[in-house]
């Protein structure tokens, strides 16, 4: 029983985090992005002001450096669902969470040790 409780509790916690995420997450650039903007002059490394125009230019500049122009239209870009705002993001993260749960379970069953 305890075994099942932990798993059910885990799924509930994961879904609660997923739904809350869009409302509580910081929209500051993340560590990698912030380092990128700092290095490309769109932001001071220790500062918090982001120059949006310079940030856009930095993104063009880096594509020129690497030559990697690959782009891919994800169905829910940036965890958004077209036509829905924050609730759409909450739904998107919740869908992602359930999908990861299902895929991990399926692949886990397929690849686990059986005696």
């Amino acid at each position, binding site marked *: 029983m*305890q075994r099942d409780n*932990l*798993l059910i*509790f*885990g799924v509930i916690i*994961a*879904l609660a*985090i*997923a739904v*809350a*995420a869009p409302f*509580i*997450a*910081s929209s*500051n*650039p*993340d560590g*990698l*992005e*912030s*380092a*990128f903007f*700092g*290095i490309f002059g769109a932001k001071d*490394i220790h500062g*918090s*002001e*982001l120059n949006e125009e310079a940030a856009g230019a930095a993104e063009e500049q*880096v*594509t020129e*450096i*690497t*030559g*990697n*122009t*690959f*782009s*891919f239209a*994800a*169905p*829910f*870009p*940036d*965890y*958004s669902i077209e036509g829905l705002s924050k609730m759409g993001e909450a739904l*998107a*993260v919740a869908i*992602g*969470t359930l*999908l*990861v*749960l299902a*895929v*991990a*379970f399926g692949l*886990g*069953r397929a*690849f*686990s*040790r059986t005696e």
Partner: protein
Amino acid sequence: MIVVHIPDAFIPLPQAAVYWIIALIFIALALRWARAEMREEKVPLVAVLAAGIFAIQAVNVPIPWGTSGHMMGAALAAVVLGSPFAAVFVLTLVLIVQGVLFGDGGITVMGANIINMGVVGGFVGYYSYQGLNRVFKNPYPSAFVAAWFSLLVAALVCAVEMAIAGTFPLGLGLFSMGLYHAVIGVIEGAITAAALYLIFTARPDLISTSEGVTA
């Protein structure tokens, strides 16, 4: 709404291909680990951990310097499931769903993200936990420090990849990635220790797995 892993534009295609090849080798090893070591009854736990890691990665926490950071979860997966390959298994799934469904993290560069978070995060997290736990004799401070360190090393490896790509200069890349992720790592450490406490309290039988005894 951001999580943000390495986007396609940050790494030239030939290098991205090399990272994919390395990642695929580790994915194959992770699948071999699963076949040999992952008992069927562990599968629900693996799935719940993967789902929880996906959800918690969506929560970007603000840190100083106008920056944010999110949990990685590799150390947690490796410690709870008793193998660094468990982290490769879980993080690869999370990264595929993030990249393919949500455009978070590039497709061509997904190999690099799998190496950084799954392989580096998982191996550094697992082995530093094993080492620290011998010193601290307490899983929670060990997990805190190991998770902090795993995130920092993963970020520094990412900075080296950015330097090879020509995207970041090496010194400044290591400095800024190190600075931000030394702080983000505190969040990683705290959540890892707290999650481990909850899991071990509910399922004391998992403690032996985390100590490297094959379950």
